[in-house]
């Protein structure tokens, strides 16, 4: 066997160069817009395809669930990214803190997106809403037993609740919202009581909690609303979703906790005009109903109807406390999860 290093090295260099050139998107091009996305392509592609069809502007994406903010930060002024799509308000707040965003003052966006779902200065905008709902086993939980998040602490639920890890963003934000409304001490007692009521160590995603109810491992779970929609449209999983009732908590007082997916424009945005077109499109009726239909999220634009399935659960009162306020309690919430050893 002959190792010819020179030849190997040359081939290597040429190939690397070739794919590098083939794949590196120009930082700025007339008909393109570059997006770093924390949301999965199978969710975002339908919306981007519709945008490209309408405007002729190509959307280039990189998807990852962590590290894109850091990539953006280090790339600095030369970053090719125009927009960053984010799956929770914590990341949006972190981006503002790290001064990676640029404020947008745009009438379409401010008209379409309610004030509590966007930053005051226009540093970020919510695009879709998800309610943090409670689901209960149809046959094992009588109606009226659980009407609020606080009810989850009832001793009657001992050994019957399932949740995902308390460290997950959706849980942390729910806890942060309870802190914002009821203060840290009350929240800690509440969380401690829920831990006492857990049927098993926190694990799996929200869908796995419903599956556990369907199989009788637990009776109550806290999940994001769109998981119900996703299960309903999967033939395998439909029976799981069928086994539970949906409860919008706290309808008599502050309303159900909402979290959002959102977007911000980067400070350096090389394709600013195209990016604004995409932002406007994302807040438009077309994009909002694609989100609603494809992923059963709540359209943030109030006159776009929710998906037919979500509509069957009726209308409900949403927690109006600005998400930016809730975000300020995230660190406290995250520490609280450690302090009471929620996941242990």
């Amino acid at each position, binding site marked *: 066997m002959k190792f010819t290093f020179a030849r190997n090295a040359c081939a290597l260099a040429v190939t690397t160069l070739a794919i*590098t050139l083939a*794949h590196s998107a120009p930082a700025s091009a007339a008909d393109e817009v570059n997006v770093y996305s924390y949301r999965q392509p*199978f969710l975002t592609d339908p919306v981007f395809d519709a945008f490209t069809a309408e405007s002729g502007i190509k959307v280039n994406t990189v998807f*990852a669930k*962590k590290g894109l903010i850091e*990539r953006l930060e280090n*790339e600095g002024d030369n970053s090719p990214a125009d927009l960053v799509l984010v799956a929770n308000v914590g990341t949006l707040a972190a981006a503002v803190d790290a001064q990676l965003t640029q404020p947008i003052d745009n009438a379409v966006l401010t008209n379409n997106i309610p004030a509590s779902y966007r930053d005051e200065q226009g540093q970020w905008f919510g695009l879709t809403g998800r309610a943090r709902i409670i689901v209960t086993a149809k046959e094992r939980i009588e109606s009226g037993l659980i009407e609020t998040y606080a009810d989850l602490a009832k001793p009657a639920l001992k050994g019957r609740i399932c949740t995902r890890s308390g460290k997950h963003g959706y849980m942390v934000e729910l806890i942060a919202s309870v802190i914002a409304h009821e203060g840290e001490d009350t929240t800690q007692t509440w969380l401690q009581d829920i831990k006492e009521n857990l049927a098993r160590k926190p*694990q799996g995603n929200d*869908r796995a909690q419903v599956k556990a109810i369907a199989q009788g491992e637990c009776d109550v779970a806290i999940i994001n609303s769109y998981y119900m929609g996703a299960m309903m449209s999967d033939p395998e999983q439909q029976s799981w979703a069928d086994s539970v009732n949906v409860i919008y908590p706290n309808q008599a007082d502050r309303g159900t906790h909402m979290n959002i997916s959102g977007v911000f424009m980067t400070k350096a945005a090389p394709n600013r005009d195209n990016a604004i077109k995409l932002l406007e499109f994302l807040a438009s009726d077309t994009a909002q109903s694609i989100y609603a239909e494809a992923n059963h999220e709540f359209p943030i634009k109030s006159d776009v109807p929710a998906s037919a399935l979500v509509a069957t659960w009726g209308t409900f009162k949403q927690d109006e406390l600005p998400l930016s306020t809730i975000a300020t309690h995230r660190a406290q919430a995250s520490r609280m999860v450690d302090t009471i050893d929620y996941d242990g």
Partner: protein
Amino acid sequence: MPYAGSPNALHNTAVHPGRAAAEIPQVQYRRLERHSPIHASADVLSHASVVADPAGDTLSSRHRSLAPHKQMLSGWTAIALTIAFIVCLPILSVLWLAFNPQENIWPHLVNTVLSSYIANTIGLLMGVAAGTLLIGISTAWLVTHYEFPGRKLFNWALLLPFAVPAYVIAYIYTDLLEYAGPLQSALRMLFGWKLASDYWFPTIRSLPGAIVMMVLVLYPYVYLLARAAFLEQSASVLEAARVLGGRSHSRFFKVALPMARPAIAVGLAMALMETLNDFGTVDYFAVRTLTAGLYDVWLGMNNLGGGAQIASLLLIFVMMLIGLERISRRHQQNFQPTATRFKCLSRRRLQGSSALLAMSICLIPVLFGFIIPATVLLQYATQYFNQSWTSEFRQITLNSVLLSAIAATTAVTVGILLSYSQRLHPTRLLRTSVNLSSLGYAVPGAVLAIGVIIPFAMIDNTLDTFMRNSFGISTGLLLSGTVFALVFAYTVRFLAVAYGSVDASMKKISPHMDDAARSLGHSSITILTRIHLPLMKSGVLTAALVVFVDCMKELPATLILRPFNFDTLATHVYQYASDELIGEAALGSLLIVIVGLTPVILLTATIDRSRELKAADAAAVDPRTALANRS
């Protein structure tokens, strides 16, 4: 006792120009000792056959003796140091981050979860170490020393689980074994149980569950290296033990195992480092290890510096492990004086129940690590084929293969350069830099990716500023967000694997080879390309194979560093897997496994064939013949 190569060895020693005269008697003493069967065998049994100090002395005095080539050597050292430095950049960046935390996380961690992070991490490491050693060594010993039905098949089939990513196997077994899964549902139906409290069943999402999953996909590291080591062990040494009536188990524990120990240690180190940087499995199983804690501090508490501090703690963990292993065999100089005298071991034929036992021992890891998960994947892939098949799959597969092949070539080339430079000029500085540069394997992928972004973006932006100021041209980002960044990250991440395997082979080549070639006036490059590389073929191929498969499975760094609109099989699978959509993820996962398997099978065959050839014409590797044949 056959000892075909010894005249050459003696000859080489004698003709070396630079060797101190005083050493020759010592060397000859050693050789003579080996000529006497009784003497040698006694030595074999009592000292576990590891050639002790004389060899070490010979090796180091040889390096001192190469003084006339010093100028050439310093060139190699400079190249090696430069490469090592570049490879170290991401690790240094992570350390730099660790000095700049957003806030001090330690009081909070110490008061709350740190003890459970550490306990889980140690538990996980010990469990994985025990499991991979047990399975890896026992199967490697069986397929190399015994003949039983299916041995030839197991020889390569035992590598199959290697192609299955740990997070994928974790999803599959959770699906099968959790409360809502088919197994427990069937049990409940069968016995009429209604609730979870009616019966006991081990929870799959737990520390022991995570250990089992990791062992199932990581034992091939130990198997691969142990098998290579057992195959390369001199038949004469083991035969000596056999002649002297050493029983099968004492031959194994007193001779073969200690001789294979350095290779096994490399395999184990790889398995443990992979365990440390795993996030997918521990996250899915809700096992709070230091790595899980790292991500929580970084992403949950928005404190990248704090996360980097935990990453540095992990590195210290790894360095301690490696250091302990090295110290414990400080006095053993492992080099195979018989690398040139290869002789096939005759395998003992097993009959009846012992053959059955051997078959079951080999079947169990393949069954649970490959056959079951692959069957489940196949089933899902068929069921969800219409949803998951896209026309982009061809491009995505091509991306994965090309990228992994390039990265494997790069990592192995760098590994060879570093190993050879150290052989030529073993300075402490070089050794330290090389050790540091192979730490990338223990850094969790996403953190390493940030470590790659930092220096790359810095270089890009500095160059851009300079070009703007001097020439008014903006060069933008040249390195960041390109395939080059990915190849670089893979090289850094998997260099330990490439270097470990290459270096182990390199060390087995007798220094007399170098001496002989040198005395005949050949340059260090010629020696490397014409003598070492052909001799190291199986080690080099093994390294390339392992890095290739590792790159196919690599996920976190790929996600963060890739260019726009660029997918590999792993990233494509991840968008579904991250949402626990196992059905949609199945087809892509299956492709990772299939594409990863092809080289596994091909290369195992090549390595085996090259071994047989090597055994057949051991004479051809006489350095002079080798050089004469090629020039």
